[in-house]
């Protein structure tokens, strides 16, 4: 029980790391998704390349590049900042792809209707299309968030004191090497399963507010 309480100390860090990275991704994904659709030569190529590179390299390698690679030159990159930056950058790429799916789910007629009302393309995007894209993107974003919650465990390798960090510590200190890891697994399962249920309920509600 004591070990369980110690492992629980890592929960706020795991959640904080996930929320921070997801926040960066939710914002950074917007320019990437729009860049990908851009008709200006070069912009779409750059956006696609960034997305592919960010998604193509494993999270733990990004954290190492930022913490060990850049960290030697930039001392302000402590473990937590590095982990948030790394996971945040990866989230930008995944969120961009999720927004892209959302954008293509909005029927073309809505763009035309906006133009017929005399609105410019930017205002159609921000007033009509954008809000609906966010709504249809929520289920995919939520399952990505659940994945990110689990992926945030790699931050332990650069010394961020989240769940696995405490589990590892306990496993080495106590006579019971196996128990702490099972408890850590239990904590993750407890966190992710209700999230999955909540997502399904939220999705059903938000779906009613998207014009077909």
């Amino acid at each position, binding site marked *: 029980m004591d070990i369980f309480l110690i492992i629980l100390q890592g929960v706020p860090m795991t959640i904080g790391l996930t929320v921070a990275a997801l926040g960066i991704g939710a914002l950074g994904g917007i320019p990437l998704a729009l860049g990908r659709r851009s008709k200006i030569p070069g912009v779409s190529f750059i956006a696609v390349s960034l997305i592919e590179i960010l998604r193509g*390299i494993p999270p733990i390698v*990004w954290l190492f*590049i930022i913490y*060990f*690679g850049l960290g030697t030159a930039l001392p302000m990159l402590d473990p937590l900042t590095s982990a948030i930056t790394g996971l945040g950058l990866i989230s930008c790429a995944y969120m961009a792809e999720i927004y892209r799916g959302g954008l293509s789910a909005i029927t073309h007629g809505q763009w035309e209707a906006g133009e017929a009302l005399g609105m410019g393309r930017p205002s159609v995007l921000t007033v009509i299309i954008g809000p609906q894209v966010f709504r249809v993107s929520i289920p995919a974003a939520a399952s990505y968030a659940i994945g990110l919650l689990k992926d945030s465990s*790699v931050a332990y390798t650069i010394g961020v004191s989240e769940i*696995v960090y405490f*589990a590892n510590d306990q496993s080495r200190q106590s006579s019971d090497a196996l128990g702490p890891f099972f408890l850590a697994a239990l904590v993750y399962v407890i966190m992710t399963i209700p999230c999955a249920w909540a997502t399904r309920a939220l999705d059903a509600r938000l779906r009613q507010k998207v014009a077909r």
Partner: protein
Amino acid sequence: MNILNDWPSFLPGLLAGLGVSVQVALLSLLIGVPGGLLLAIGAGSKKKLVRTLIIGIVEIGRGTPALVVLQIFYFGLPASGLTLSSIGASVVALAATTAAYTSEILRGGLQSVPQGEVEAAGALGMSRGDTLRFIVIPQGFRVAIPSLIGFAILIFQATSLAYTVALPELLSQAYSIGSTTFNYLSVLVLAGLMYAAITIPASWLTCRAEKRLARHL
């Protein structure tokens, strides 16, 4: 570009690491995907107890980070008398994760086979096992192929987690070169590009597979 000068000297070590990464990924898939198929068939069982048990196993397997599964097998199991080598633990842990995830992918594929075909097979006097083997699995598997390739890419990326159990895969090799040359940035970037050199073409393959298979559906 100063950073590029050392790359030729890093390559042999990193390529050896890449070989280990690919090997672990392939072995995990080879064991994990059939495991996932068994779980997927089990999840469609008529016995409620079997169904609940299997769905429980799958949910726990998917809810636990691969990193934690890896640590359970490598650091945890020796305490109960079963010691695995770092490569053994990596393969077993990633195969378990693969089985849990691919069971959901394959379940989706198997469910996409129309019920009418199963009934037709029954009407022709085929047993349940034969129906599964000749009708449902071949078609369901095909539907699942793009998602399976997508998952294979993720498992290849996940082999980098085996760095934590001292497996000499690509990331471990890069890190150890970094710690002797103090040129972390250069060697880690090269390692990252080597991962990308496999994952990015593989993701193009997924897109192509999706388009090709869509033709016949």
